[in-house]
């Protein structure tokens, strides 16, 4: 049963159209990888889901039509976004970043710092002074604090040191194992995606070009559309 459904989704930045027809399904508890080359519409798709861009076509989440909702309402329905480039609240401390975002549910300060113990060590440090990896953990933690039912990770491991990347991937794997959350991951490393994702959706030039189980994604298809 599909939890998030996109059908023929279109979106544009002003006069230039970026999405021409995205189809995507995520079932409850499923991890889906959204893949494609740079500039093919991955982040734009995320923006359309999170209502940061006006979109055409249909987007339904848990049976509700998202297309007419403002961004904050989509978040309140249970869509947690870890945006590209982390985008923490720079002038708030780690603690403040997290409690400011908190909505009732299982995810609280204890749960998030269990996932990322390093955040507890940096409790009173301003987000702007954290390292890139710590900011990324904070961005993931902040999205979790909203107790989402769908977590979207947009390039969560980009530009990080290998050890930190491993830590982030490990956290995603633990989220998959321990929670019923649906997860949409955008990333460039096929190897890790293959380990964690159940399904894959490949986009090219603003269209969905391939959908299927991760195990069925052959090297030829991925080379053609993702480049690896």
């Amino acid at each position, binding site marked *: 049963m599909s939890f998030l459904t996109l059908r023929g989704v279109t979106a544009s930045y002003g006069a230039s159209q970026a999405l021409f027809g995205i189809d995507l399904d995520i079932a409850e508890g499923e991890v889906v990888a959204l893949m494609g080359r740079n500039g093919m519409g991955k982040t734009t798709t995320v923006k359309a889901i999170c209502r940061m861009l006006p979109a055409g076509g249909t987007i339904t989440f848990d049976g509700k039509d998202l297309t007419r909702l*403002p961004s*904050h309402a989509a978040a309140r329905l249970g869509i947690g976004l870890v945006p590209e480039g982390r985008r923490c*609240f720079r002038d708030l401390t780690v603690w403040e970043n997290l409690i400011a975002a908190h909505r009732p549910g299982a995810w609280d300060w204890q749960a998030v710092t269990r996932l990322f113990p390093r955040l507890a060590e940096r409790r009173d440090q301003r987000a702007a002074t954290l390292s890139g990896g710590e900011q990324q953990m904070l961005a993931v933690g902040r999205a979790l604090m909203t107790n989402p039912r769908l977590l979207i990770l947009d390039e969560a491991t980009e530009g990080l040191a290998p050890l930190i990347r491993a830590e982030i991937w490990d956290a995603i794997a633990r989220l998959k194992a321990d929670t019923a959350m649906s997860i949409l991951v955008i990333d460039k490393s096929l190897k890790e995606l293959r380990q964690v994702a159940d399904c894959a959706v490949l986009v090219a030039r603003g269209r969905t070009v391939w959908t299927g189980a991760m195990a069925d994604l052959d090297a030829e298809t991925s080379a053609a559309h993702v480049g690896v």
Partner: protein
Amino acid sequence: MSREGIVNAVLLVGFVAVAAWAHFAGEPFTITLATRAAIFALAAVGLNFALGLGGLVSLGHAVFFGIGGYAMGILAFHAQNYTPLMEWPFAIPGTKVMPIIWLTAIVTAALAALVIGLLSLRTSGVYFIMITLAFGQMFFYFAISWSAYGGEDGLSIYIRNGFPGLNTLVPIQFFGICFVLLCAVLWFVSRMERSPFGLMLNAARQVPHRVETVGLDPQRAKLVAFVISGAITALAGALFADLNRFVSPTMFSWQTSGEIMIFVILGGVARLCGPVAGAALFVALEHWLGDLSDYWHIYLGLLLLLIVLFLRGGIVGFLAGRARAHD
């Protein structure tokens, strides 16, 4: 305690010390000055909530100050004349009881702030400043033409309103009321600043769209801040009218809005006790420089210029160092 905490404590203890000294030295006028400063501080704490936390540059806070003033004036006017405020559909008598007056001021101003905020918050930047200013002028001219309550001449209230258990005519006791209210509101504001709502508002001021991804509607948060802000300033207005035992349209004037903003900027925008420092300095200058020259505002202007150019964090910023970035 942080450095800012120490500065805040010194400021508040200073208020008490000045009032206590004046009381024992038999200088009631100094107590009145301290009371005036505490009330101005309270009005500016209200504005600072919208300006510092929400980034809302309101040049119309005289509306709320005036509403507070007229809430006191109208209720006390009817009480001293033994006439009901209204008879139909039910009779409402006037009152000389301060807490009821305060509550009336707060509720009325909150409703006005809700309406003004709903309309003004559709705009931002210079348009927001202009639209709040326009609301201020509307209230000002309405008060001038409201002949039932004195019109341009305002309303005189012969005896200061009462507070159960206290004699408000004794300067130190009235100062005590104003100062305790100021401290209570400062405590409330400091709690709000550290609450999830306050933190989000702070984040929304800097990056409005980013808070939406965690489910906050920045417009609604700003509206709530504007309403709280207006209610605080109205409480100060009610006290100010009681201090002078007089209320006039001047309380609604744009100069009043400007002065409230000057208190905030002098003391430090977005600093908890910035308005306290600013209002205290303003009242002191008004008193001392006012003795020297009728044109003392020239010196105030110069000081404001220097602070804006060289002390971006105002007095509190200068004493306590830079806090969080506030652009």
